């Protein structure tokens, strides 16, 4: 069930240029199951910034009652979030949305997880869960540059991990699609999260494959009430059918919605 809770900050660490890892503790963790779900964070109690900020759940530790979030501090809200220290409380609403389905694959099959920038975090919990089912995982992670990359070792522990950077400072120079082609990766199912152009390129190339994309949209409510985050459904001649990224998504079957 979706709830709000003042969670306690257990740790906050700068893990790459502008990228923070935040560990939160609270009962809300009991509700969190599916990789790809997100939380909606209120960074303070003032009138500005007014809206909550959606952040994916990067990992869940039921045993410790913690979740890990990884986020880029860029705008007003995330910069304020980055100033918070361990021990402080922060209001979290969640878990929101539907995560990545992990039941489509059988033991021994291969999943390709493709992440771009701040789309990488939710893939970590996904990878953990797929692995625990005996599914082989391959990661292709794209970043702007080496100094903005993170969690590479952690992903490597779970499966083969390829990196692409725009400036070539690490791995393949270029985009994730370049890396996938260069490495001639085969897979049974694709899971991806990242910037729209990346999602579009992947959907185009692997249209015939099974796959899931996680969509970013500007949100207000995060629970399906305001209709800020809708997208058109593919193959809908009426053009009136829609899905809400917050409550129907953020994860959609490849080809389900127009991106």
């Amino acid at each position, binding site marked *: 069930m979706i709830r*709000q809770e003042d969670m306690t900050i257990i740790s906050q660490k700068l893990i790459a240029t502008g990228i923070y890892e935040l560990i939160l503790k609270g009962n809300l963790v009991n509700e969190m199951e599916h990789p790809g779900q997100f939380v909606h964070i209120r960074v303070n109690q003032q*009138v500005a910034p007014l809206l909550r900020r959606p952040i994916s759940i990067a990992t869940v530790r039921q045993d410790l009652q913690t979740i890990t979030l990884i986020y880029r501090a860029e705008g007003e809200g995330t910069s304020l979030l980055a100033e918070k220290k361990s021990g402080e409380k922060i209001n979290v609403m969640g878990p929101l949305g539907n995560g990545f389905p992990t039941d489509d694959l059988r033991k021994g099959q291969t999943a390709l997880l493709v992440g771009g920038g701040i789309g990488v975090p939710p893939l970590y919990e996904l990878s953990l869960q797929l692995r625990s089912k005996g599914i082989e995982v391959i990661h292709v992670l794209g970043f702007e540059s080496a100094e903005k990359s993170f969690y590479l070792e952690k992903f490597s522990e779970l499966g083969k991990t390829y990196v692409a950077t725009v400036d070539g400072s690490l791995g393949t120079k270029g985009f994730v699609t370049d890396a996938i082609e260069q490495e001639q990766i085969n897979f049974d199912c694709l899971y991806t999260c990242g910037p729209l152009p990346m999602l579009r390129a992947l959907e185009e190339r692997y249209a015939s494959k099974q796959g899931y994309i996680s969509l970013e949209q*500007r*949100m207000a409510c*995060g*629970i399906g009430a*305001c*209709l800020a985050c*809708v997208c058109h459904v593919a193959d809908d001649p009426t053009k009136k059918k829609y899905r809400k990224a917050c409550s129907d998504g953020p994860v959609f079957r490849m080809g389900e919605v127009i991106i």
Partner: protein
Amino acid sequence: MNPLQIELPGLSLKNPVMPASGCFGFGREFSQFYDLSVLGAIMIKATTFETRFGNQTPRVAETPAGMLNAIGLQNPGLKGVLTNELPWLEKFDVPIFANVAGSQVEDYVEVAKEISKAPNVKALELNISCPNVKTGGIAFGTIPEVAKELTKKVKNVSEVPVYVKLSPNVTNIVEMAKAVEDAGADGLTMINTLLGMRIDIRSGQPILANRTGGLSGPAIKPVAIRMIYEVSQQVNIPIIGMGGIQHTDDIIEYFYAGASAVAIGTANFVDPLICPTLIKELPEKLAELKIDHISEIVGRSWKNEYL
């Protein structure tokens, strides 16, 4: 005596707090969080005759102490609302304000006629002020004569009282209010959003796909308070006030200005429990201010003006 119980044309409310149209959908999502029967009323999302998808995304952008939206009246259309939404809402003990919108007079009239027959619809909220619809929309809300005509036609067909929602994007809000009062409006709701824009620094383009959008949230409260202060002194019909309410103090401020009830919009996105929380806190706040009943303070700011 319940210090929050109020009477408005056509309806008796257990408290004067209701979610504002478009900020609460048709209630389904919020029913996950609490029993909707605690609400004074519910203003449901604008209903148009036809199903509408609305505008492209991005549809929202944050601004200092506010937000812009350009949803574009997305809704399932009259039939969808009558078939799926209103019957579902019947399980709650709460009166519904049906927000009625359209691109042309005939649409408004048709929707008003049909939706006012639904058993739980106790009042209409005539949305003549949505800034995010290209055809017509805004003109209804900015030209007194046009607003008057529309109100009359809707009054003719409605089975329930008609409240008209005023746009703040006008030179003379009193003139608009008087025009719709003349036309027989039973109440006013104000304010709708202020027309605004935000431009992205990287792209140089407006953030909203629709380019402009409606500004809501705490930022607009002073404008709303001023308009209600002006209008409430010049009309004899009650006003439901809205714009940036987040605390019980804000509710009191709206009543002092001249509102007889309030609606909560944007704050629902920040805290889904905001309405029940404010309803719960309000009696305490009244006691603290030594107010026996909330109706006592309607318009206090100007009623005491010459004391």
